């Protein structure tokens, strides 16, 4: 029962960082949604803000680490110009070629939108702080960007999982 170096990095990229991203998103979204005067008390504000700042920052960091490890560590193995690389295997069979020409081609690009948007949300929360409680408009704007960041990562993650299932990096 063991993994190769390539498989370890694929796991770190897709599962470890992916799980951290998902956890940070769930926590961050719940805290952003609940950041309304009617739902929090004076003593609760400091705790809620601290948790929110950690959540959105963690999501941005996880998103950056995911795209950096994906693009610079795992992707080169995927696209090696050898007959047994995942890319070559997918393209060799017309039934699986679309997983590369559509799935991988979209995943490798759209994934990069996630850390950009997550960083914008982290900035908004860190900069505006408790101002988010007073200004619903800004809070809702942050939530829209936060959900978009998650959505783009979800598209990339789903295609990554499907492609790994068909032609894993080994």
């Amino acid at each position, binding site marked *: 029962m063991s993994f190769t170096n390539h498989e370890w990095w694929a796991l770190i990229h897709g599962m470890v960082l992916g799980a951290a991203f998902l956890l940070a998103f769930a926590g961050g979204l719940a805290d952003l949604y609940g950041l*309304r*005067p*009617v739902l*929090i*008390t*004076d003593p609760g*504000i400091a705790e809620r803000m601290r948790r929110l700042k950690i959540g959105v920052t963690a999501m941005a960091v996880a998103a950056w680490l995911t*795209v950096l490890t994906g*693009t*610079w560590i795992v*992707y*080169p193995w995927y*696209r090696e110009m050898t007959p047994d690389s995942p890319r070559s295997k997918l393209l060799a069979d017309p039934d699986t070629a679309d997983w590369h*020409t*559509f799935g991988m*081609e*979209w995943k*490798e*690009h*759209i994934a*990069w*939108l996630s850390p*950009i*948007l997550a*960083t*914008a949300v982290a*900035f*908004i929360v860190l*900069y*505006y*702080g*408790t*101002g988010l*409680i*007073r*200004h619903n*408009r*800004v809070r809702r*704007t942050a939530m*829209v*960007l936060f959900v*978009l960041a998650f959505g*783009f990562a979800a598209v990339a993650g789903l295609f990554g999982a499907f492609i790994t299932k068909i032609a894993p990096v080994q």
Partner: protein
Amino acid sequence: MTVDDRTGADARGRDVAAEPEKPEGPISAAILASGVGALGLGVLTTLAEASTAVKDWLQWNDRVGPLSGKTILAVIVWLVAWAVLHVALRRTRYETTRALVIALILIGLGVLGTFPTFFQLFAAE
């Protein structure tokens, strides 16, 4: 403690989130810049498909291929746009709703540019 959902003040009139008001300009700058970054990635992706010369130029790393140049340049575009917009809007009350609408349009165009069915229409012969 009961808190007015509209004003954020409790029963004694205290503001539960008493912090100095900050301008929305820097927030709008961050939102707009994310849209510019997304659009940049979409444009670079489509350009790389349309021109072999651009694709070759974007291959800043042989192992990663053109994706290396596309993503590094998109991040640079995003950061430069953020810096410029931050300086321009940092003291203004530029509304985040307006910034969000513009950013969503730019992000939509960026997503279109990275969508394979779209950018492969421009594939170089």
